[in-house]
């Protein structure tokens, strides 16, 4: 059976869903520019952003290398963003994921949801991250400060649980 983000269910709101901005890219994400673009106009009341960063794991990590499935990665993120725009009354939604080598302290992923009221923006941004973590085809591998390529990061049950909770809402 084909699996879709639609499995998460729809609250069937009547508004026209926001057209998502979705990108997969290697360069740094200009979060100020992305944020400014979303908050323009007088309709937006609240904007929630999430930025995920490369941690240094206590100084052990030199970099994370992000591999992705070109084509499918963009499509999966777009599907997740459209699902969010269908479930909540979003005025704008952006999701950008980096690939390649990323140093500690640098951003890996950026999502932003703008809405008239804050609750929708908070929930949609959290939903977007939970589904992006479990459905978008990206994989992290560690590069260690001692010069060795460390292992592939293992997926976390807590991420699956976080995504699953939206099915019950």
């Amino acid at each position: 059976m084909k699996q879709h983000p639609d499995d998460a269910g729809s609250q069937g709101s009547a508004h026209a869903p926001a057209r998502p901005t979705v990108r997969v890219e290697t360069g740094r994400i200009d979060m100020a520019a992305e944020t400014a673009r979303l908050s323009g106009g007088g309709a937006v009341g609240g904007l929630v952003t999430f930025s995920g960063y490369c941690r240094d794991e206590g100084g052990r990590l030199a970099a994370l290398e992000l591999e992705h499935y070109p084509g499918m990665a963009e499509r999966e993120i777009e599907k997740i963003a459209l699902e969010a725009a269908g479930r909540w009354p979003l005025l704008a939604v952006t999701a950008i994921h980096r690939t390649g080598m990323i140093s500690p302290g640098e951003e890996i992923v950026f999502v932003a949801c703008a809405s008239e009221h804050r609750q929708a923006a908070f929930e949609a941004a959290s939903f977007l991250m939970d589904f992006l973590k479990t459905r978008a085809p990206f994989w992290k591998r560690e590069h260690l400060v001692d010069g060795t390529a460390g292992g592939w990061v293992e997926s976390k049950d807590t991420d699956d649980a976080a995504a699953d909770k939206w099915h019950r809402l």
Partner: protein
Amino acid sequence: MKLAYFAWVRERIGLAEEEVQLPAGVETVDDLLHWLKGRGANYDSALQAPEIIRVAINQEHVDHSEPLAGAKEVALFPPMTGG
């Protein structure tokens, strides 16, 4: 049919992608995983636990029970760890 491999599945098999001709009887994703597993030590190493391998047909996530009919590109990869 084109097979594409990612992350440690790609590393263990030693290929990013390949074209294969499926033998008769390989009709579902599950059939494909078990057939591949028997093709050599590198495949066996990648597919030691076939149940954890995620599969996409034509860039859509599918369950292991999915038929392969109509598949142009089948991708095998570990659970995702992006975000």
